[in-house]
């Protein structure tokens, strides 16, 4: 079993720091195959079902609540810290196991998680993070919950999604002039 250390400097050098996070976490040689598999109708259905599960969890745990987000930023309740924290612990343990055991995808590709690229003082992370936090606290929802709420009937948040698309577009337009 092939275990590839995702922290290898060669991997780092190949990634364009300005690129959006690559969503394909397999070695270069396997990428086209992975795309083909992901776009098979059966796979797309499974991804859709992952979404249904996630949307349901977001609603039932009240992560979609504007009020719960306020409670989180005010540190008045452990609820959302608990949700995000325990999700992180479970995800981190799983990722560590995947790396340690060299677990492959069900199609047999080695899993190689691309590291996030750090340049200079990491401007994009703290500045981008602050902008995102401002939006998160204003509208009380991050991207997943925005779509869950619209699906659940809070139709006004279509306007927030339109705003988010405008924000994404604005970033794309100015990104060569923004410090990263």
């Amino acid at each position: 079993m092939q275990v590839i250390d995702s922290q290898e400097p060669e991997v780092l050098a190949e990634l364009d720091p300005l690129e959006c996070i690559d969503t394909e976490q397999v070695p270069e040689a396997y990428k086209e195959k992975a795309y083909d598999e992901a776009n098979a109708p059966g796979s797309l259905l499974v991804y859709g079902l992952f979404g249904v599960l996630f949307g349901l969890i977001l609603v039932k745990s009240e992560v979609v609540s504007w009020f719960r987000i306020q409670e989180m930023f005010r540190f008045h309740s452990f609820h959302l810290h608990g949700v995000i924290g325990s999700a992180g612990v479970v995800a981190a343990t799983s990722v560590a196991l995947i790396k340690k055991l060299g677990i492959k995808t069900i199609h047999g590709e080695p899993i190689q998680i691309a590291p996030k690229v750090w340049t200079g003082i990491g401007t994009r992370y703290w500045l981008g993070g602050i902008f995102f936090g401002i939006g998160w606290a204003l509208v009380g929802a991050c991207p997943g919950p925005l779509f869950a709420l619209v699906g659940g009937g809070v139709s006004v948040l279509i306007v927030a999604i339109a705003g988010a698309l405008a924000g994404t577009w604005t970033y794309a337009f100015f990104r060569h002039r923004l410090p990263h």
Partner: protein
Amino acid sequence: MIEFISQPWPWYVAGPLIGFIVPALLIFGGKQFGLSSNLRHMCAATIPARLDFFRYDWRRTGLWNLMMLAGIMVGGFIGMNLLASPDPDIHLSAKTVTALGDIGVSDFSGFVPTEFVSWKGLATLPGLIMVLGGGFFVGFGARYAGGCTSGHAISGLANLQVPSLVAVLGFFVGGLFVTFVVLPFIL
């Protein structure tokens, strides 16, 4: 059974379930959990305007994620309608209710403060800033930082990435600024 799962789920049920989505996506197809990339795919699909950031095959690289997003809308529909909690009130901490009451929030029913976050609220300045402005910063900030809550706070931290830790600290700096400075000012 339906009655049991219709109750609000505690953090120690919801959190681990969300956490398992990360290895599930990796093992199913080598995919990284991260939903804000969909905003980029949607721009690339509709108004790429020859920007290099949108010049890629969104269908080939992103259709799986867009399917997941569509699923989230279905999950939201199920959770808020078919499996809606028998008790519609969210049991917030009393301190939060008092603090929000002090800055002008009076309607605590539902998932959003309908005085501001509603079609009617959109006609008010606070409502417009919260919905349209909030949405804009979510989209802009997520792409600038290279990820949102799912991509950085969950996927990124799961892979022990320092950049993600910095981004999450940034989320809180921005969120605290809005909570304690912007909201009291605009509401």
